[in-house]
Every structure is written in structure tokens, then in C-alpha cells.
């Protein structure tokens, strides 16, 4: 059971089950815990090779035991996500922990990743359970539905879940090159049905200053 203690510490109550968490993110525990490094994020040899090839590196550990374990990373804000059989797409650098039963994988994101400087691939989490994702400042959760598509700055995007199509919009025109760009030259547009998580801060991207 995941719960937040403050907004920057994740507490997980465990009764013999396990969680996957970012390597080294444990700050304290109470009870009996065993920590095991998961080579290749527990995705087997194929997952390991995929992650190596795609650059979507992720070092996870498996924590199993009885009691409570607390996780935190660089005082980042933590956001809980409930998954009921749907898929969460998140940058590996923003993933803190997931339930042991959730499957993680890698997927192609297209141009969005490139404009963020995060590579062309992203991490997926699938199954039933909870995940904890990190953001710079508390994330705002925005619902996308058929009548309300959403446009997001690539630098502020952290994750999305549900049945969403994303398309990359580029507003680069000759004005950008003349130095009169609109400042929001790269955008991702989400359509469909689902949730998008954005953080109140922008990673340094090429897009950020155009």
C-alpha cells in the first residue's frame, strides 16, 4: 500500500509482498526488508538489451519484506498513480517506485522524446496496482477527453496514462530563425481519453529557448 508522508516521501506498507523502486531511493525502513538489485529492471535479458539499445536506462531494486519502507529522491515531489489494467507512460528518470506486480517495459515515443532531450523511448508500466512518479514541483493532473484535447510543453511533460494519441507539433517558422519565435515552438498534442501529468517547471530543452 503506497501512501505519501508529506509530499516528498513515499511510505510503502508491506506484508511479505514486494515493490520495485529506483536504486538507492530507500531513506528508511521499519521491520524486515531485503533489497535486491534488479538487473535490467527485472525485464529479463530482452528488456536489458532493449534498455541498453534505447538509452532508456533504469536501475531498479526489488524490496521485499514486512513493515514500512520509505522512499525519496532529491527532495522531488512525489505523485501517486493508480493503475487498473491500463498503461502508464513515464520517463524512466521520473519513476520512483511501482508495485511488484506491475510490468515495466520500453516503448517508442517518437519525436516528443527527441525534443525533450530524453531520447526517443519511454518507460511503460502496466497492470493493476500503484506507481509513484516524481516531478519538479507538484504535478498537475489534466484530463484529456474527446472534446478537450490538450497541448503540453515537452519540457513540462512527465507522464500520461490511458488511451491517448500524441502528436508532435512544431511551430518553427522563418520567424523563429529571425529571433521572433513564439517561444513555444515545440508542443505535444494529446487526443483521446486519459490523464496527462505536467510539472510546474521546464527541463532545459532546445525547445525551451526557441
Amino acid at each position, binding site marked *: 500500500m503506497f501512501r505519501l508522508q508529506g509530499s516528498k516521501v513515499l511510505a510503502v506498507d508491506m506484508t511479505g509482498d514486494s515493490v520495485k523502486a529506483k536504486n538507492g531511493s530507500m531513506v528508511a525502513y521499519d521491520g524486515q526488508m531485503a533489497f535486491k538489485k534488479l538487473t535490467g529492471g527485472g525485464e529479463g535479458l530482452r528488456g536489458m538489451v532493449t534498455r541498453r539499445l534505447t538509452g532508456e536506462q533504469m536501475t531498479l531494486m526489488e524490496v521485499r519484506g514486512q513493515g514500512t519502507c520509505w522512499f525519496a529522491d532529491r527532495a522531488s515531489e512525489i*505523485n*501517486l*498513480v*493508480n493503475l*487498473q489494467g*491500463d498503461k502508464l507512460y513515464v520517463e524512466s528518470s521520473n519513476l520512483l517506485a511501482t508495485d511488484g506486480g506491475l510490468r515495466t517495459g520500453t516503448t517508442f515515443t517518437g519525436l516528443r522524446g527527441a525534443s525533450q532531450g530524453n531520447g526517443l523511448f519511454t518507460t511503460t508500466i502496466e497492470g493493476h496496482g500503484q506507481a509513484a512518479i516524481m516531478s*519538479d*514541483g*507538484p*504535478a*498537475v*493532473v*489534466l*484530463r484529456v*477527453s474527446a472534446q*478537450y*484535447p*490538450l*497541448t*503540453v*510543453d515537452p*519540457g*513540462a511533460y512527465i507522464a500520461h*496514462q*490511458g488511451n491517448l494519441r500524441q502528436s508532435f507539433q512544431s*511551430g518553427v517558422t522563418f*520567424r523563429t*530563425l*529571425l*529571433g*521572433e*519565435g*513564439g*517561444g*513555444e515552438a515545440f508542443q505535444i498534442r494529446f487526443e483521446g*481519453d*486519459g*490523464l*496527462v501529468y*505536467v*510539472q*510546474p*517547471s*521546464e527541463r*532545459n*530543452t*532546445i525547445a*525551451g*529557448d*526557441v
Partner: protein
Amino acid sequence: MSTPYPTPGGPTVFDPMTLPADDNVNAYTFCVELKGSQWFLQKGKMIAYYGTIDFNGIGHGRLDRLVRTSFHSPLHASDWVVAEGSGKMLLADRAFDVNSYDLEDGNLTIRSGNLLAFQPTLALKQSIVPGFLTLIGTGKFVAASNGPVVFMEPPIRVDPQALVGWADCPSPCHHYDHGYMTGVMGGLRAMTGLGGASGEEHQFEFVGAGTVLLQSSETLMAEQATGAVPQQAGVPGAGGAHSTQGPQSGVPRLPGQLGDLQRRFGL
């Protein structure tokens, strides 16, 4: 409409109906509602939007009239864009606290790096004080600060790093403690506003009627170059005399200048 992703006890999920209009979503995110109206905003501070919103750089021919009436700092126009359209737009800045302020036929001078966005009913002008901008008129603006903002009444002396801005105060001036200005190092400290033995020998002093805005931290937000002022006798800050203030402040920048490409691409 089906809601397939309810998160009981989880974070609040916003959609265009539940997002506030021209108000904070949380301490770090501000939501602007556009109904065919326009807002000026600093480049790159939009994090997401619903609806149809266009972002045009200042210098876009169609916006000339708007720029003439509410934008009087031609030399840093390249840092600002005009958002136009209808929908709701979220603004945020590096996870700093953001707040909106209403001016009613008033004036407010603010550190250039702190101002995020403003309504075109306000006029933005460069302040005579280097590094600051003045907003005059009636309307709403959004400013970021490192930690919540506190409002103080003059007479007051404030730490230079904690000053966000001031309204109505007629006399912002420097205040130095004894012996601060002696010697070469003293002069250097006075120029940069940094250093000193205890770090508290130099303050800004405000007297008269008005309000002084302070952030609750002495960590400065990154300076935004306000552009060079015309090189003219009697103009403070002209002539590159304060070239220690920031990497770009000595260089005059005109919108559309090609020499700016490097900075524009974040190199």
C-alpha cells in the same frame, strides 16, 4: 462521459471545466483563461493548454499596435510572446511560487526575472533602476518568487536579494553601512551588490507611502536581461558601466537581431 481513471484519494484531476479562471491551480501553477483576449508572457513559461491558443513573438507584424500601446521595452521584446485565442493555459516557472496581482490604475516595479505574464491593459516599461520593469495601468499580472511573497510598508530597508518589487514608493535608494564604500573592494561590492564581510552592509531603502514586495528567500531568480537603455547623458545604466550585472545586459538586443541566435538556441 465515462471516467475510466478515477483516483480515489489520489491527486485532483483537472479538466477545462474544473480549472480555475485566472487563478492559481496550486502554489506553483497559474491558470489563465483566454476568451479571444491576449496576454503577454515570458517565453517558455506555458506548460500546457486546452483550446486553441496561438503564441506569437513580439515583432509579429499583426501585433504591432498592441505592442505600441502596452509594451515599451523594445530592447527586450525577444523575451516575450503574446498568447492569443480561447481556452485555458497553465503557466509555471521552474517550480517557483507564482502569484497574481491586480493593479487598479496603479504602478508596480518588479525585478525583470520575476515577471511571468501580464494583461495588455497594463503597460510594461523599463524602470530607470537597471534590471527592473515597471507596470502601469489597470489589470492583472503574474509574478514568480522564490518562496511566498510578503508585503511590507515603508519606511523599510531590505536585503537586495530578497527584493521582488515595490508599488508606489517614490524613493528606492541604496543604503550603505559605515566603511562599506572605502577601498577598491568596497567599490566592487557596491557595483555587484555581492560580497561584504557579513553580507548585510548594503540594503535598499524605501520611504514614503507604498508597498514593498519581498520573497521569503535570499536566492535570486535568474536575471532576465532587460535590454540596454539608449546611450545618452543622464540615463542610468547606459554606456555599459554596469557590465558586471549579467552576461547580456551590456549588449543591446534588437528584436530580430541575428547575433542573438546562439542564446535563442540555449547554447
